[in-house]
């Protein structure tokens, strides 16, 4: 009996030590201890202050881009294969109807689709034998969406990291609506961060065929209404010295970019020879080779610097350029700095839309914590003193169990890297309530057994045994529902569930096991015939 008790006591001590280490770590001095506690008990933004954003990645953008590219390729292939048709156009992001296919070419077009467009199905159109629809496979479209979400997440993470926000959180949010939650502790003016996160920053350098024209019509008109093959019309802002009446400028530029944002190896804010803010970029070896070839072949022509499908500037190529270049435009120093940042972090594959923004100022967070701490101390003190008053010696036991319960809970939050939020505190409160309840159940039961004339040892054993069934039932019920909240809930609901599950598991340990060991210890040292303080 004695050795069994000693073994259990040692086990409890180990749990206590591990828990304390979980809260304070291995501090070298008092300062480090405070630092460790702050690091391990991670407070949510609602308590600490900061900005919380929910945004939706418009993944359909990425699907649309893929569909556009497929349409181009398909059109080119039809031309090469000499298949005539009346019309081919994109209906929506995953469907491209083709009309007026000659009957004798139906087989050819089918072969083309199945050989070279494996992500697409060519389906017949009911009621029209000469029409087909190129439909993107559901799995392929889904893969593009998922990829876009992941890529957007990485890009946003890169950008936020470069801004120097400490401990940001970027995670998927909600159920399959391609939403992300971004939490930025300590950021209390999110305007700039939001702009930086939102800029798609798709960079392309393209050789200009002709332009700028003052309007779209003028540009088309100079080509007789039809653009030359493999070129496109790009809008931009008129540069000083080439004033156009509308302030607009339209360029006819090559469709294929000489280099894109993917070819960049670096980008830094700088100043051009006139002292205006600009961005210097360097290219990867591959990109430099291509850029050298294109610029070498087009000396004297304009090079359009296209950002998000708008020409920001179109300098004339003076000579062959290889691995570095300069983006000028009318930037402020801040804009140049931000542009360099977003170019370094890569383009967003799809645009994003903000759904929610909440900013807790640090003073309000501090107020909440102060109030919360005061309320918890008052509440706990009231509960603990009542337990002492009502159950005397056993009240000490209950209070130890309750205290250990909270210690384990806080330590576990630290070990799991969970964050304590206001709803999380609700979970802690329910834990405390059920923890007290467990002890009350046990003690009342022991008293009952004593009233029924049982000896002290038997009464303690009987009390624990009977109460155990009830405690298991109440705890398992609540843990089961909390597990559901955790699995299907998001954000705040999850925060509640996490602390509740950990707290209840800890409580099963403290109120059933630890309390029992303390009772057994008290009983083992008791003189025969002495009454139990309960």
């Amino acid at each position: 009996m004695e050795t069994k008790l000693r073994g259990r006591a040692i086990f409890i001590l180990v749990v206590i030590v591990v828990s304390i280490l979980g809260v304070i770590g291995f501090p070298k001095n008092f300062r480090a201890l405070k630092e460790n506690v702050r690091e391990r008990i991670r407070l949510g933004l609602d308590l600490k202050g900061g900005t919380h954003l929910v945004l939706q990645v418009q993944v359909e953008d990425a699907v649309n881009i893929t569909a556009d590219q497929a349409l181009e390729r398909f059109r080119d292939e039809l031309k090469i294969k000499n298949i005539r048709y009346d019309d081919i156009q994109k209906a929506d992001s995953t469907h491209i109807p083709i009309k007026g296919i000659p009957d004798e070419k139906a087989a050819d077009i089918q072969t083309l689709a199945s050989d070279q467009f494996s992500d697409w199905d060519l389906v017949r159109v009911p009621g029209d034998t000469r029409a087909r629809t190129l439909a993107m496979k559901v799995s392929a479209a889904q893969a593009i969406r998922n990829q876009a979400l992941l890529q957007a997440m990485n890009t946003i993470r890169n950008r936020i990291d470069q801004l120097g926000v400490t401990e940001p959180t970027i995670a998927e949010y909600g159920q399959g609506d391609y939403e992300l939650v971004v939490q930025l502790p300590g950021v209390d003016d999110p305007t700039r961060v939001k702009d930086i996160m939102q800029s798609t920053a798709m960079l392309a350098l393209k050789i200009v065929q002709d332009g700028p024209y003052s309007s779209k019509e003028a540009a088309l008109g100079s080509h007789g209404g039809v653009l030359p093959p493999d070129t496109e019309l790009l809008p931009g802002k008129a540069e000083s010295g080439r004033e156009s009446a509308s302030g607009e400028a339209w360029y006819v530029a090559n469709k294929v970019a000489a280099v894109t944002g993917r070819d960049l190896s670096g980008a830094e804010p700088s100043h051009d020879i006139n002292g205006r803010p600009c961005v210097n970029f360097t290219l990867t070896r591959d990109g430099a080779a291509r850029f050298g070839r294109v610029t070498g072949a087009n000396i004297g022509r304009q090079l359009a610097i296209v950002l998000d499908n708008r020409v920001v500037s179109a300098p004339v190529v003076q000579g062959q350029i290889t691995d570095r270049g300069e983006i000028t435009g009318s930037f402020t120093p801040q804009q140049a700095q931000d542009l360099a940042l977003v170019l370094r972090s890569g383009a967003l594959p799809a645009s994003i839309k903000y759904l929610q923004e909440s900013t807790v100022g640090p003073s309000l967070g501090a107020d909440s914590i102060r109030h919360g701490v005061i309320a918890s101390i008052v509440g706990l003190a009231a509960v603990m003193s009542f337990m002492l008053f009502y159950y005397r010696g056993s009240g000490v036991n209950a209070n130890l169990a309750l205290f250990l319960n909270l210690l384990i809970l806080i330590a576990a939050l630290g070990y799991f890297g969970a964050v304590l939020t206001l709803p999380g505190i609700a979970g802690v409160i329910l834990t405390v309530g059920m923890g007290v309840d467990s002890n009350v159940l046990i003690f009342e039961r022991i008293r009952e057994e004593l009233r029924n004339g049982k000896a002290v040892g038997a009464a303690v054993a009987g009390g624990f045994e009977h109460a155990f069934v009830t405690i298991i039932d109440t705890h398992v019920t609540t843990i089961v529902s909390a597990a559901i909240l955790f699995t299907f809930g998001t954000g705040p609901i999850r925060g509640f569930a996490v602390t509740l599950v950990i707290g209840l598991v800890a409580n099963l340990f403290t109120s059933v096991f630890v309390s029992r060991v303390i009772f057994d210890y008290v009983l083992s040292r008791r003189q025969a015939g002495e009454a139990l303080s309960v």
Partner: protein
Amino acid sequence: MEFFHEPKIDWMGKKWFFIGLSLSLAVAGLVSIAIHRGLVYGIDFRGGTLIYVKFARSPDLDAIRSALNAQGVRNATLQAYGSAADHEAIIGLDLQTTTASDAIDKGKRDIMNALSTVYGVGPAGKVDFNNASPQTVGDHLLASDPLRQASLGSEVASKTYKDLAEALVRYRNTPPRSGLVADFQELRSLPQVNPATLSALTNDFYLSSYAVRNTEIVGPKVGSDLRRQALYVTLAGLGAMLLYIWYRFELIYGIAAVVATFHDVIITLGFFSLLNKEITLTVIAALLTLVGYSMNDTIVVFDRIRENARMDKRRNFMDLVNHSINQTLSRTILTSGLTFLAVLALFLFGGEVIHGFSFALVVGVIIGTYSSIFIASPIVVFFQQRAGQGRVGERSRLLEREAAGARR
């Protein structure tokens, strides 16, 4: 000591009185909800913009309202918040005042514009110290370098100024200032602040007479998603509890426990509607807590019923339930009393932010305890009596299963 010595109260005999009471409370709540055309949801569910501002003096809400009106923003709700001495106000804009095509933070910008119309903008080129983050303060100090740290290397310098900035901001955020410093001279009370630092601060910063303490902007989708999700997961949680209780007791016990818990939620929501309080996300957290608490309380009583039924197979079921409730009465009173104590502390000292939350818990603890005795238990009694005057039928099946469980 003990409060109750073997009470012999006929709980089930009084059940109609209490069921009537519950029904009237529930009906009053539902009628109030109907009159208000649904529950009053907070911005987090409804969508919109909410800004908490602390002012140096008592805020002129009418002036802010007319500034908003002048910008074409109507239907703003402005209300004082907390105690009058704190000079705090909440400014809220509903979603419908901002259109879908606008950026999500249009409402916020409108409010900020109105505030600077009423309270003026600071000197050009200066930053508002009262609304600056530690990062901003630190960056400015690093640039002006009042303590001549640059020669010690950039690492040392930025660490020094980061610490200094944090101390300054902490001072600003500590009550009674709570985010608002009225005069830079106040900062001299900090040991870290010397005249050089103070003049560097006054060069770069000014002190506005208001500080934004909290901003909440919720788009329409997030709001309705949250509302739906809160409802679905709560129902799923209740369903899981029902299954578990079914497995451990009998189906009717599960139904009774879920009905009782549901009753608690309805009545608590009714109180919110009657008092015209908003349902916010933290209130939902409180309702989830209440569900857990009420369920816990009900199971304790059921467990005793099951145990007594196993020991005394011939006893009239209603007596047995009465006896079980009496046996657990002192634990019920103790536990709910203690939980009430803890929750009351939260309600009284927890501050304004969690006021709705703690209110829901104060109401919930009382209702949750009450419903175990007067809602959940009568349902089981009613069913058992119908299933064979409380001696045979369902109950005996339960007993057989229990006996089988005991043998195992």
